[in-house]
């Protein structure tokens, strides 16, 4: 049996990136919502709802980068120089918001500064992730196995729009996560914020979806030519279905369902992007097969991955299980 290893790996890397977006999405979302909390006590609870797990969430980003380096080295070598500025800004932003988890508990007089670093870092990281995605959708100039564009190519109205979309979307994930993990006034507040975040996210999905097919002829063909035009019917219907679930969950004041539906929205969008891209990894010129490492690299890495990823998912789920339930406002940091 001949398995197409590059294709399998494209699936695994997509899974890692999606997992990252979902998991770090809600903890970046908490950073985005930080300024809207009533007081320090609320911010403490918000941060504590992710403190034991944020580090694991962010590791999926390292897997995305490290995995790309391992199995699609050419894609890694082309995408990162092309997106030099947004990637560097994202990394710096993640530095600020990562250390804020520890630093803001270590000072009284300067706590405001690390609250600001937490929010600023979260907003900037989310924005840059969106811009990265937007720029990738628009396409990257490649010649002779290297990026051949300029260092501002990533900046466009479309990439900025996707940047804003991600910030709004993460705010939705953050607010619905907090509905699950908090109670009382904070929960009520988050129920309130989830509304504009939902409406904003849906509007952004609509806008980006309409614009995407016009970014490249390949996408246009995919979404408007028979038989793949069927996807243009199926995907919107699925989004509408999930959106209805989200809105009804919010209306009925469910605790869990708004979070689940928000996650599903992200999954659908991610699938949508995948459908546009396939078989390209670096649109419009490099396919997954063009960029794949030689077979022995793909095989060697795959052996461990199929064992380790299920294990990781199990113990990650266990960590979430250990810290389940409402965050106790009286329980201080470690």
């Amino acid at each position: 049996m001949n398995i197409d290893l590059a294709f399998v790996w494209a699936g695994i890397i997509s899974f890692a990136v999606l997992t990252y977006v979902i998991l770090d999405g809600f903890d970046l979302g908490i950073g985005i919502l930080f300024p809207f909390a009533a007081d320090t006590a609320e911010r403490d609870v918000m941060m504590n709802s992710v403190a034991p797990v944020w580090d694991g969430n962010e590791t999926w980003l390292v897997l995305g980068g490290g995995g790309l380096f391992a199995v699609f080295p050419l894609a890694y070598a082309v995408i990162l120089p092309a997106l030099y500025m947004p990637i560097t800004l994202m990394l710096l932003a993640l530095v600020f918001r990562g250390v804020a988890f520890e630093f803001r508990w270590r000072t009284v007089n300067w706590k405001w500064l690390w609250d600001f670093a937490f929010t600023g870092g979260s907003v900037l990281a989310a924005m840059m992730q969106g811009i990265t995605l937007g720029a990738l959708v628009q396409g990257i100039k490649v010649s002779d196995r290297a990026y051949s564009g300029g260092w501002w190519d990533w900046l466009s109205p479309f990439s900025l729009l996707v940047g804003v979309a991600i910030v709004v979307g993460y705010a939705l994930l953050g607010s619905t996560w907090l509905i699950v993990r908090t109670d009382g006034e904070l929960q009520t507040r988050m129920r309130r914020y989830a509304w504009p975040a939902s409406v904003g996210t849906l509007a952004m999905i609509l806008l980006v979806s309409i614009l995407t097919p016009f970014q490249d002829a390949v996408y246009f063909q995919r979404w408007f030519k028979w038989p793949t035009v069927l996807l243009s019917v199926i995907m919107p219907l699925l989004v509408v279905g999930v959106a209805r679930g989200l809105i009804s969950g919010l209306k009925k004041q469910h605790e869990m369902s708004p979070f689940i539906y928000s996650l599903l929205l992200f999954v659908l969008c991610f699938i949508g992007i995948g459908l546009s891209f396939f078989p390209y990894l670096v649109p419009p010129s490099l396919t997954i097969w063009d960029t794949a490492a030689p077979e022995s690299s793909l095989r060697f890495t795959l052996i461990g991955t199929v064992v380790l990823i299920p294990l990781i998912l199990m113990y990650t789920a266990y960590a979430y299980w250990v810290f389940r339930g409402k965050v106790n406002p009286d329980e201080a940091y470690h």
Partner: protein
Amino acid sequence: MLDSFTAETLARAQFAFTVSFHIIFPAFSIGLASYLAVLNALWLKTKDQTYLSLFEYWKKIFAMAFAMGVVSGIVMSYQFGTNWSVFADKTGPVLGPLMAYEVLSAFFLEAGFLGIMLFGRERVGPSLHMMATAIVAIGTLMSATWILSVNSWMHTPVGFAINDVGQFIPTDWWEIVFNPSFPYRLVHMVLAAYLTTAFVVAGVAGWHLLKDKKHVASRRMFSMAMWMACLVTPLQIVAGDLHGLNTLEHQPVKVMAMEGHFNSYPDGAPLILFGIPNTEQKRIDYAIQIPKLSSLILKHDLNAPLAGLDTIPDSDEPPVAIVFWSFRVMIGIGFTMLAVGLWSLWRRWTQALYNDKLLLRIAVLMGPSGFIAVLAGWITTEVGRQPFTVYGLLRTSDSLAPIAAPAVSASLLSFIVVYFFVFGAGTIFILKMMHTLPGTEGQGLRDGPIRSAGITPATQISMGMRESAEEDNNHEH
């Protein structure tokens, strides 16, 4: 401000800067994770509260160092691509899988169980908490294993072929992972991490013992740290020597630079203790040297011939002065550590370990010495590999990404500003925590208490804690 530099120089400066900052944190957290596992095990075994209070004390410092290690590490995993994309494209098939394994088998493990280790003692019970603590320690060691395998392959590349687009293609994974310099580098680095942590612990203990020589927890950690100093330093010197011999075998040019051997010595090379490398005249000025000793150390024969840099084309030479100096800094610190270890052994023998103020003061001074030694050692080995990224095969100048100098200088300046600000603040916080005595509630600040597991309900301590923290704050104002 940086306009006159090429993109290559700037990219090298950026990599050197970010990796130097990064290595400080793992060098500390690898040792500290193991120390915490030992402390927790001793607490569970003896039920001696001193161990628990030390565990809780160092745990908070660990959390801080670990967070800084994580965020500075994410930067590293992307910098191969942003600044060194040609290197990434060419070496990705060989090095990428090893790094992927590091993420899968180490980073996730550490991150997954760190939360339980830091926050979960009451939630999961003592056995599972102990397990999580041990897993975090194992995770840090696994991480060191993979990344040192990657780094070692760049020094001693084996098990590969080169394809038609110039990529290194793996042919034998076993050979790649266990490449010739890897076992030596791994042992040398892990011992370095342990010593670094031991001297930090000794420094903190010394600081507190100078104020109160009867303080039980400080005595306990000072004693533990000094055992490490006198037992591990000799091992480290042996490991370093073996690593050096391995380098002589595979990267003789690096050893020439370390030794300052500009010339070849057909009948016995001298050991140059000190001197000032004069790279223009290709000689060591004001050299203080012991005849033939270098040949004895490196070849175990007084009269063995040793080739010098005169046998190497200038274009293949590493920057000699940097390698020469950093090597001596590392060696000097290593032998000072040995002296401190032996001194502590003598003081332990005379039952004056906690009374010798000079020893305590020197322990405080030596607190950061491990970090300096680790940095000096890495500078020696990495600068000594130049002008190659993959030794002998891929030049640094051929590894660079097609990036514009202004983009690199802008990002370099941002990294410098952000790192000094963020990690400067982090260092101040860590020093403040170290300044408080173990067992002090809240480590001097308003946050969470040191939760004595199973003794007092968390909420109760935290309420009590809030009050005492507020008192602290009142004192501050």
